[in-house]
């Protein structure tokens, strides 16, 4: 029982990342009809926003300490972050400690801007082009983004630890009557899940309860008619692209403390998030979210010893197997609309 609960938690957690990326992809797809292969790269850029904030906060001046030696026997260079000298060591250390949550504030405008520039500068010209061209150009863009990040940050993963107060783990098992150590779960993973739920809720209520969202939804259903009504739907769609980029970026910022960001993390998620979107059904936002969590949970269960001994290698192929089964039984994924991307 405890093992099952634990894997459900894990699944929700993995699913959070899948759902957030898939949500953004579907937003772009549903509004603009563009297949965005650079979406994984946006996730990666988000994570590197956190890395940059951490680096900025750690900007240091160097003093030579004659009493200590470095590896070549020269005097050791001691680095003191500016933040610490400005605000005093303790406040400074706390600011650095909270760099990941701070990075959210930094990432929102950056990602909105990246999304805006991307849409206006590039994607706009590809609305009428075949999907194959969209794939090629966004894939090229993804490679470029990724190589630029590699050029500045290197290929090695970079740790972005969570704040001290939110690191470590809690024993959830005790709270609901299990033995100690039965259900230990990292705090930041719980934070991530809560954050994902919050973002998803915010996006849905934005679309559901604001006039802007209503127009966008109308545009998704029938772009031409909305245009004929004299509404500038293009501008709204551009903003939606920015929002989708920000969602991916925030998913990346918060993901850093779970697994240290590296420049190709976007590619690792790219294929998976497409599978998620399609399993959910093209063009369906609830479908994307549902499929994200579902695949996350199934993936977690497939990696238990019980599953891998029953069917060897099931943990390697589960996602794809599920995708095949879903697509063969439900032609348009879980909640897909008819006629979207079927040609």
């Amino acid at each position: 029982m405890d093992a099952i609960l634990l894997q459900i938690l894990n699944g929700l957690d993995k699913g959070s990342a899948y759902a957030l990326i898939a949500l953004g992809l579907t937003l772009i797809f549903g509004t603009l009809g563009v297949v965005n292969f650079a979406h994984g790269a946006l996730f990666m850029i988000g994570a590197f926003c956190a890395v940059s904030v951490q680096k900025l906060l750690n900007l240091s001046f160097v003093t030579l300490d004659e009493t200590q030696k470095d590896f070549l026997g020269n005097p050791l260079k001691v680095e003191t972050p500016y933040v610490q000298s400005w605000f005093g060591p303790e406040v400074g250390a706390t600011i650095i400690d909270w760099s990941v949550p701070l990075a959210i504030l930094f990432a929102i405008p950056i990602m909105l801007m990246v999304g805006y520039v991307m849409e206006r500068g590039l994607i706009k010209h590809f609305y009428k082009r075949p999907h194959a061209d969209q794939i090629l150009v966004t894939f090229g863009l993804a490679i470029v983004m990724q190589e630029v990040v590699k050029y500045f940050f290197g290929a090695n993963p970079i740790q972005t630890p969570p704040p001290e107060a939110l690191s470590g783990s809690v024993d959830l098992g005790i709270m609901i009557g299990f033995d100690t150590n039965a259900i230990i779960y990292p705090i930041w993973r719980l934070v991530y899940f809560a954050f994902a739920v919050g973002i998803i809720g915010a996006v849905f209520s934005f679309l559901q309860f604001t006039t802007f969202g209503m127009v966008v939804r109308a545009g998704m259903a029938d772009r031409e008619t909305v245009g004929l009504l004299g509404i500038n739907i293009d501008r709204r769609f551009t903003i939606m692209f920015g929002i989708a980029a920000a969602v991916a970026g925030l998913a990346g910022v918060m993901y850093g403390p779970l697994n240290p960001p590296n420049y190709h993390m976007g590619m690792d998620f790219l294929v998976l998030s497409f599978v998620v979107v399609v399993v959910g059904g093209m063009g369906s936002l609830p479908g994307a979210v549902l499929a994200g969590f579902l695949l996350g949970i199934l993936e977690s269960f497939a990696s238990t010893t019980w599953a891998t001994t029953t069917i060897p290698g099931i943990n390697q192929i589960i996602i794809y197997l599920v995708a095949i089964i879903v697509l063969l039984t439900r032609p348009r994924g879980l909640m897909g609309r008819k006629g979207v991307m079927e040609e």
Partner: protein
Amino acid sequence: MTNKSVTRRGVLKSGAVAGTGLALPTIFTASSAAAYTNEPTGSSVVLGFNVPQTGPYAEEGNDELLAQQLAVEHLNGEGDGGCMNTFSSKALKGNGILGKKVEFVTGDTQTKSDAARASAKSMIEKDGAIMINGGSSSGVAVAVQGLCQEAGVIFMAGLTHANDTTGKDKKANGFRHFFNAYMSGAALAPVLAAEMGKERRAYHLTADYNWGWTQEESIVASTEALGWETVNTVKTPLASTDFSSYIAPVLNSGADVLVLNHYGGNMVNSLTNAIQFGLLDKVANGKDFKIVVPLYSELMAAGAGENIKGVLGSMNWNWQLQDEGTKAFVKSFGEKYGKPPSNSAQTCYAQTLLYADAVERAGTFNPCGVAEALEDFEFDGLGNGPTWYRGADHQCFKDVLVVRGNENPTNAYDTLEIVEITPRAQVEYDPEHPMFAGGELGKCNSGA
């Protein structure tokens, strides 16, 4: 840079022009007269450095490349000479190899067997490379080793830790300076017993491919010989980026040690996840929970950051060693690049010098002569103390390091501290050991 490096091709060209000038009637000549593949005929010789430059191991590859460039400088008599001064063999004179200036070409393995073979082939076929050096994974090492055997050039393997490289996939033209999974197990086990006791229950997470399996096999064998019990061995897909669903059940399994048979990005993430779950703060079976990472590298340690504190593992070499060879190399590398070298960099550096030295001693670039000179060669002064290249399987034997993540690092480079230097005798094994049996070295191929 003002040195106008004369390429081998350039020399060939001038030679060829002169040649055709002399023998005009026979323009169409087949150049099959060479005694062996890519016999250097001009005043220079080309070495091929095949390392990952893109993909997750790009940093590792970059470090290897820096070390190899340094080795070329030293061979050509530039710089401070590095390990040439401490090397026990004095055949190298700092005038290139056999009087020929050393040049190099580089290629990108992408850490994929296919791409690695393609770039090695291009260096052999297009640039006339006489040996291939470097690499950062066992799959690539075995693939390129096979290619070099077929093509008739010497291969020096770089970072490859799987037993198979000098086990069932060993080849007469290939040599490995790096240690292997068996040696990791043999070196780690006594330290583990001393630090954690003989009654431990281990849980293995293993990357699901060849290297992971051989390492798991080696570590399980050597720890069980101590009296440890293996609770479970779980294979994780190589493509995994998040290990939470593998880590979560560990604490409840009755194990009190977690062994991570992962490397590179897998290791960074699985260790980070394990720390997140607070494993190291827990008590299981009345003992403090421990984590072991059998294969460490500096770059991965840097990627794992604070998480490696107190975690034990093994290494081929570390810049903090105090022998003369190590000190000379660290000084030379550090002054040029401003950071200490990693252990894969040291491997590639040492291999380049060793190859050059073997050529000098053999008096020829012929791979068969070079292989003969390297076989059962004993030397000292390149780091790790007295070292032996065993002729039977072309595996190198030297001291192995057991290291631990430093609790209080003073700078970015001493994140690992040396716990013990395991003497060579303790990690030696019979060439017919079951973990290595099955392959055949075959005969050396010079491509003639």
